[in-house]
């Protein structure tokens, strides 16, 4: 089923949760794109006289630091705004690679079948059997703490989500009358893939990709929480850092977590919204 812009807008009209998700995603996008312009302070600047300031709604807080400051006097809000770049940036890049690999391997598996199918599905089983966080910890710790390594793990392990969904859909679509007709007319395989398979896969892939971005945000924050990503300006790192100050300055750990929660929550909501739109009968086209 196709997703036209008109259908998307009309479905969004009555769906408040979908609207909420879209608003949060847009706010996050603004944070990622314009972080230096909209953040009130330098996220890395030490300002010891202003350290451990509580957020604005507590006694002693003021609007200069709406979410308070940490023990070095750094502004929590500015750090959250800049942290969005790391978390969402790596997640989006990782998911893009995962989708690319997943679509290719899923089509190979479902359409070519045979040895291709067995080999790719066994690879899926292998990747399923190793926890993603463990794999990512090993790769990042051993290969080096670069964001690019995190993106590679996300892509190299995340493709299995999409491959399974693509495979299931391809198995279904290739038995449809119009595809069988095209095959009988002698249409080359590659043309069938581009003309008949891919257009039918956009929808399901959009759903899984949206939900996977949320999942990968959690993964990136988890790695930063362990302090192995090499980035100290990340939501996960701030949560880990603030753990030592839970008794005196709870806001350091709490607010970055709220930021993670809100972003993952909105991507999940958006994914659910797209799924309901594409698959109102729950016909499982978006399920592996």
């Amino acid at each position, binding site marked *: 089923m196709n997703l036209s812009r008109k259908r998307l807008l009309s479905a969004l009209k009555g769906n408040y949760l979908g609207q909420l998700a879209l608003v949060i995603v847009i706010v996050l996008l603004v944070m990622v794109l314009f972080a230096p312009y909209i953040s009130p302070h330098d996220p890395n600047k030490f300002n010891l006289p202003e350290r451990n300031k509580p957020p604005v709604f507590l006694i002693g807080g003021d609007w200069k630091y709406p979410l308070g400051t940490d023990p070095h006097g750094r502004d929590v809000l500015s750090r959250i705004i800049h942290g969005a770049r790391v978390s969402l940036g790596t997640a989006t890049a990782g998911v893009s690679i995962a989708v690319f690999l997943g679509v290719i391997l899923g089509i190979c598996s479902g359409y070519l079948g045979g040895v291709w199918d067995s080999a790719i599905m*066994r*690879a899926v*089983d*292998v990747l*399923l*059997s*190793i*926890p*993603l*966080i*463990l*794999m990512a*910890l*090993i*790769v990042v*710790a*051993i*290969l*080096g703490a670069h964001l690019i390594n995190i993106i590679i793990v996300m892509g190299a392990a995340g493709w299995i989500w999409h491959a399974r969904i693509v495979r299931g859909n391809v198995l279904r679509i290739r038995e449809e009358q119009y595809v069988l007709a095209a095959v009988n007319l002698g249409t080359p395989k590659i043309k069938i893939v581009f003309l008949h398979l891919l257009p039918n896969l956009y929808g399901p892939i959009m759903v899984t990709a949206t939900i996977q971005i*949320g999942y990968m945000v*959690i993964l990136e*924050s*988890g790695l930063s*929480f*362990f302090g192995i990503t090499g980035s100290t300006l990340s939501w*996960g790192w701030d*949560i*880990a850092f*603030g*753990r030592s100050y*839970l*008794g005196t300055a*709870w806001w350091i*750990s*709490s607010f*970055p*977590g709220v930021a*993670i*929660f809100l972003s*993952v*929550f909105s991507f*999940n*909501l958006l994914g*659910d919204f797209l799924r309901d739109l594409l698959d109102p009968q*729950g016909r499982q086209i978006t399920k592996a």
Partner: protein
Amino acid sequence: MGKYLGRRLFHSVIVLWGAATLVFVILHLSPGDPAVNLVGESATEEQFALVRKSLGLDQPLHQRYLTYLGNLIRGDLGKSWFVGQSTVDMLLERLPDTLELTITAALFGIPIAIALGVLSAVWRGTYLDYMANFSALFGISTPNFWLGVMLILLFAVELRWLPAMGRGPDFTLVIKDLFHGNPETFLQWARHIVLPAITLGTWFMAIITRLTRTDILENLGRPYVMVARAKGMSRGGVILHHILPNSMISVTTIIGLEVGALLGGAIVTEAVFGWPGMGRLLIESINRRDYPVIQAGVLMTAFIFVFVNILIDLLYVYLDPRIRLDNKEN
């Protein structure tokens, strides 16, 4: 059955071989020399060469791989480079703690999840349904390490009801004392495990709640449901007696698929709560590049995953008498 099991075991061996190979490749193709971590940067070139030789690192890659596989087949998972102890012993020493945490989390999560899923399907569209949906969405959107920190903040730092770190008495001791009519040890144990178990179980619970609800709702339009309804059975009765047993198949499938994620969550949870399990050993080993322990640890998690999934396949036969494993494709 026997034929099926044979095929299934063969398949499992392939998965384990794949996992072992994957980790081997990641570890041994990485830049950087693990010998540096062992003897320190100030060591002389001769010392490096000696360490490399003793660990077999001076051999070409394919040689190392074949040696590794050969040892694996003989059941030898190697010795830790740092402690010198057998990796299997090190892991088995920590495994009970991880299993204790994981199983407690699952036992807390699964029943609540199924109950919530059923309730929200029975009362679809009511506030109860919205609440259940929302809490499930909350569960899958909350990173477990943050949830853990927030639970510590609330229950350990602010309210001072529960301990923030560590584990309580040994489980065998708990059972023994309970047997002797002494609940104090059990309470001590429970006070330590409740926060980590909630931290680990929440995401798991949320996934299963959503699946149970969707699966039940998908079944509502099926002919067997209409027959039961036409005979005058109530909606709730049909769900409980006819649909739920069918849905258990999907629920157990997802439990099997998420075992890996659950073990991954345990690694994170152990780090947050200072829980002395396998996850902490793995993190320590990753940090000091103790390759044999990392390899054995990954293999053990993969083994648990494969093992649980075989158990679940066998469980299908009991859950749904129509399933005959030998006739099943795949």
